[in-house]
């Protein structure tokens, strides 16, 4: 049988997109349409589930099964969906407020359980839909309508939460880098288990330019590094810089300077069971060390939904009940004639 090929258009709904002009979500939506076409799962075998917030409007713009749910709960709803209908490919969309504040509990538990869903975390470090309050990823001292004198709390770093919850897949991209975003989305879809993709997204109205210090074209090459499994960790406009091991830590060096050669530069191993180096890579913030994009960790592990299905099959085969009545009659009963 000939394989059906899909194009991005097959995943687009007829609804007009209502995000603000210039919002980073537009680019992410386009990347998702294209990534889905690359993955090639039919639209009717795909479900997109979101919470509440600007980014959570996304399911309406998909020609798949979709559910725009309630604030913070997308991960829990997606978990139930996947367990109930494991043949479907499930995408879950959240923002930083939805996923890490009100939905923080569901987020970490979905990751811990390793339910086979693809979790896109659109991080703009602000509440946009409620018009500009700080979020759990806003930096300490961040001034917003709800923190007029600056916040007095430290933010979550999403990757750190993922590793704290024993996550097996973490990737990162930037909204304007469509190709990278597609690449990590495809990798997330191909990974079996909970795949978390953080996408740095720009809110043009309430937090414009929040990621500029990293994403600005002028210095993006120096402040980010694109990690690819099996490849040297090099960055810079001409790949002139690299990451090396320095004691317990990572260090950015210029290749050919201070005695460092390309042989000293680390090779990325996304499949390494230990997450020690993955954590260090994911925690790089674009200041001393470049912010990592691409697939940082991608390790196979048992998934929640497959293990449930396996257990059901095993127990069913062992007990061999055809029906509820069979099961009851095998227990303690007596007969009245």
């Amino acid at each position, binding site marked *: 049988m000939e394989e059906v090929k899909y194009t991005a258009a097959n995943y687009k709904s007829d609804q007009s997109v209502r995000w603000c002009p210039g919002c980073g979500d537009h680019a992410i939506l386009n990347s998702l349409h294209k990534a889905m076409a690359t993955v090639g799962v039919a639209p009717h075998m795909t479900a997109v589930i979101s919470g509440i917030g600007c980014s959570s409007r996304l399911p309406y713009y998909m020609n798949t099964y979709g559910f725009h749910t309630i604030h913070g709960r997308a991960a829990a*709803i997606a978990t139930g969906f996947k367990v109930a209908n494991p043949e479907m490919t499930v995408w879950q969309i959240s923002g930083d407020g939805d996923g890490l504040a009100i939905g923080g509990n569901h987020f970490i538990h979905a990751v811990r359980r390793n339910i086979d869903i693809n979790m896109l975390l659109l991080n703009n470090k602000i509440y946009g839909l409620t018009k500009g309050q700080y979020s759990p990823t806003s930096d300490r001292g961040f001034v917003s309508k709800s923190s007029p004198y600056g916040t007095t709390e430290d933010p979550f770093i999403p990757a750190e939460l993922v590793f704290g919850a024993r996550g097996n897949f973490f990737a990162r991209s930037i909204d304007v880098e469509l190709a990278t975003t597609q690449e990590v989305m495809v990798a997330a879809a191909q990974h079996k288990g909970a795949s978390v993709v953080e996408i740095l997204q720009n809110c043009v109205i309430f937090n414009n330019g929040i990621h500029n210090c990293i994403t600005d074209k002028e210095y993006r090459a120096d402040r980010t590094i694109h990690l690819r499994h099996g490849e040297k960790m090099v960055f810079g406009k001409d790949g002139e810089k690299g990451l090396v091991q320095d004691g317990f830590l990572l260090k950015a060096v210029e290749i050919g300077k201070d005695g460092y050669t390309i042989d000293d530069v680390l090779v990325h191993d996304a499949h390494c069971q230990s997450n020690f180096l993955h954590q260090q890579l994911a925690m790089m913030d674009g200041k001393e060390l470049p912010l990592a994009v691409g697939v940082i960790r991608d390790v196979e592990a048992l998934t929640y939904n497959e293990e449930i299905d396996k257990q059901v099959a095993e127990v069913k085969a062992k007990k061999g009940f055809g029906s509820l009545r069979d099961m*009851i*009659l095998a227990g303690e009963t007596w007969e009245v004639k």
Partner: protein
Amino acid sequence: MLEKANVKVLDKVVVRFSGDSGDGMQLAGNIFTNVSAGVGNQVSTFPDYPAEIRAPQGSLSGVSGFQVSVGTGVHTPGDQADVLIAMNPAALKQNVKFLKSGGVIIVDIDSFKESDLKKALFETDQPFKELGITAQVVEVPITSMTKAALAESGLDNKSVLKCRNIFALGLVCWLFDRPLESALQHLKNKFAKKPAIYEANAKVIQAGYDYGHNIHASVSTYRIESEAAMPGVYTDINGNTATAWGLIMASEKSGRPLFLGSYPITPATDILHELAKRKDLGVKACQMEDEIAGVCSAIGASFAGNLAVTSTSGPGLALKSEGIGLAVMAELPLVVIDVQRGGPSTGLPTKTEQTDLLQALYGRNGESPLAVVAPASPTDCFTMAFEACRIAIEHMTPVVLLTDAFIGNGSSAWRVPEADEYPEIRPHYVPEELKGTWKAYMRDEESKVRYWAIPGTEGFAHRLGGLEKDYTTGAISTDAVNHEKMVYTRKEKVERIANDIPALEVACDADADTLLVGWGGTYGHLYTAAEEMCKAGKKVAFAHFRYINPLPANTAEVLARYKRVIVAELNTGQFADYLQAKFPGVKIERINKVQGQPFLVSEIIDGVTKIMEG
């Protein structure tokens, strides 16, 4: 074997086992119940246990009780016990109030030493006198007899003492002429993996039985009548298990796989336990990270095409409110089980109440109608769980099943239904011919029910959500008039379920002037009260509601037939208020109790009599 002179013949008897929460009173009570059911008695049980798992040994707060009524015409565990077993002074002190006048108390006299009395806060060394007990007290050296029976068993002292409950059980089996073979079979099942413990218990139960036989001159024994039950296969079942099984039956009859998303909470957790075991029938029961995830995973499973259920108790229902509202808005089938307990807040976690009715009906933001049903007894939990699923799936709506701690933990003998006894459930699937023109919120104009398209079906991909939708296109809509139309459509959809549920029936003396009304788990007590009043020549009719929203279609007509309508319930008047608002022309009187305990039949009779006498 029994000497006639000493045998009392009774329709039914009530036995109450009491002891420390570690003394195994629930096990002894359960076996006695099963054995009685096995000889053809009707049974009704009431486990009354503390919230503490192991309170200090011998203390008043650690007393655990198990009351059971066996015989004929049994609809409740009985107001008061004919026989009370008290394993220690604390149990005696806490439970003597449950003894009938003329009843018999059996105590383990070995546990009535000075230190034991002290732990139970007795002030003198004469506990029976101090409590003013005039009933016959049979002092049995249960501990020493148990030890003697197991002297050569090789078991350590702790294991030996754990068999005391079974000595008491043996004695009670003799007292009520229960066959020991049957009790032994239950013990064998219970200790299937511990043959040494089974052997010890088998020895001890025989010792207890023989002890009774040897002292029979000093105490009456009983013969309990049984009546011919409907032929079939029976099992002993508690309400929570019945609920779980009713859901499975609905899954079989609807062809939709069963999913449970839940979080442990007393007294509902046994539903999760049972469904977790039922992977052998294909059930997927997920213990989620919190109550909210419980309902949300169920909503996800429902969208995905499963028969989706979440189980909880009052505080959990509060946490699930927003999720249930989403299911109302998305018009997805969802069954929410609330095994009610004493509230508010953490309240009385192990005790029973009917105080979540208004929360179930109205506890959500916006106009968010849903169906509410409430089983009448432990075995009725099976039927009403099935009904909750049927209504949810056929009418595309969340349904709250309101059980309570009393019927959830209580048990009765239950006839296992034949394979074809329950109807097929017909999911409201989207018809294939609508492919291409179907919109997510298109509905059947007769029932107002929208169609269910199962994800994975080609040609029916659609988006649902909590935002208001256009009546026709299903797209997001903030149009004022459309919103109002959708609000009334959702309301109408739930109201039209009334066309699909049985009519309200009137029992006892239908021609009376006074109608006693109840709902949910109080059925047994109310029915028994009405019946006893009729027998005593006081005319009372009785109507019991199991369908709360919508109400049966003939409700107004039934209520209008009576001069006096008395609603009795375990809260401050929630159902009475609900009925009064719907039927302002009916004069509604009330009997209420909010003590965390079920009604006593005598309380109902007194209350109704008082109202009737004006």
